[in-house]
């Protein structure tokens, strides 16, 4: 029986927008840099960032495509509070296949980021573990308070059956 059912196909093209709640903020930027272990002063030192031509500190490049905070959901059983499609698929584990980021300008602490997720594609492919698995590709577009594009994240997740048949 195929994993990619007609019901699942009907999810392709769905879209959801999570609007900005507040400015990104300096604390978020510093927290991210500290958590990664990235000590580049561009993210913490205004004078340094200004000398490099920026209006203030900027966000580390990939912070803007980390969009869990915008969904503003209570944690599910697995603790997750970010966007998810909750596709009608059971008995699978979720594995990241890859991401393609495109960035349009440096992100500032004053930016109010909104994100729109679109379910772009679901493809069923053979798995090296036997049987098949689903590749789910979603596109997240991040914009600022003026609707200017900041970044696009094309993300592919694999839904891998725990017990391949």
């Amino acid at each position: 029986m195929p994993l990619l059912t007609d019901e699942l196909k009907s999810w392709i093209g769905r879209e959801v927008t999570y609007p900005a709640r507040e400015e990104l903020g300096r604390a978020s930027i510093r927290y991210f840099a500290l958590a990664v272990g990235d000590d580049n002063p561009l993210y913490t030192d205004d004078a340094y960032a200004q000398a490099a031509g920026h209006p203030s500190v900027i966000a580390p490049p990939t912070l803007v495509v980390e969009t869990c905070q915008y969904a503003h959901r209570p944690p599910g059983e697995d603790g997750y509070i970010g966007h998810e499609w909750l596709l009608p698929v059971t008995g699978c584990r979720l594995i990241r296949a890859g991401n393609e980021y495109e960035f349009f300008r440096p992100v500032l602490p004053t930016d109010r980021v909104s994100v729109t997720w679109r379910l772009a594609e679901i493809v069923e492919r053979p798995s090296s573990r036997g049987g098949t698995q689903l590749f789910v590709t979603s596109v997240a577009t991040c914009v600022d308070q003026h609707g200017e594009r900041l970044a696009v994240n094309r993300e592919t997740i694999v839904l891998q059956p725990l017990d391949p048949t």
Partner: protein
Amino acid sequence: MTPPRTLTAAALSVGQRVPPLDRALTAVSLAAYGGATWDWHRLHYDPGYARALRLPGPVVDGQMFGALLAEALMDWLGPRAFIRRLGFRMKGMVFAGETVRCDGEVTGIHPAADHDVVALVQRITVGDRVAAEATAEVRLPR
């Protein structure tokens, strides 16, 4: 304050290596990254949850590799460099307690109207195991 110089395309050549970046990804790193990105998924910090999925331990969020690949590029190229594109494909999972290395090399240098674009390939490895393969495009001022 004078920031370090940003490299220009004239200082780069195809085949040139990105200075490697090594980072130990401890249980603390994974919890901190999950907090900083509002990603509270148990997969990244709960050993019991990982075991139930038949995994040896909490899994490093693949997007953390994106952050490290970007860090390696910005550290090397300088504060006026702008990463236009960064893409990575996961080749294997990395677990709490492992140390990753990011390295890479320049694959192309392309002049644009008022800037140059440097194309690169990058890799994340744990010892001789490849965890991710990446490509990047960085805009450099003239």
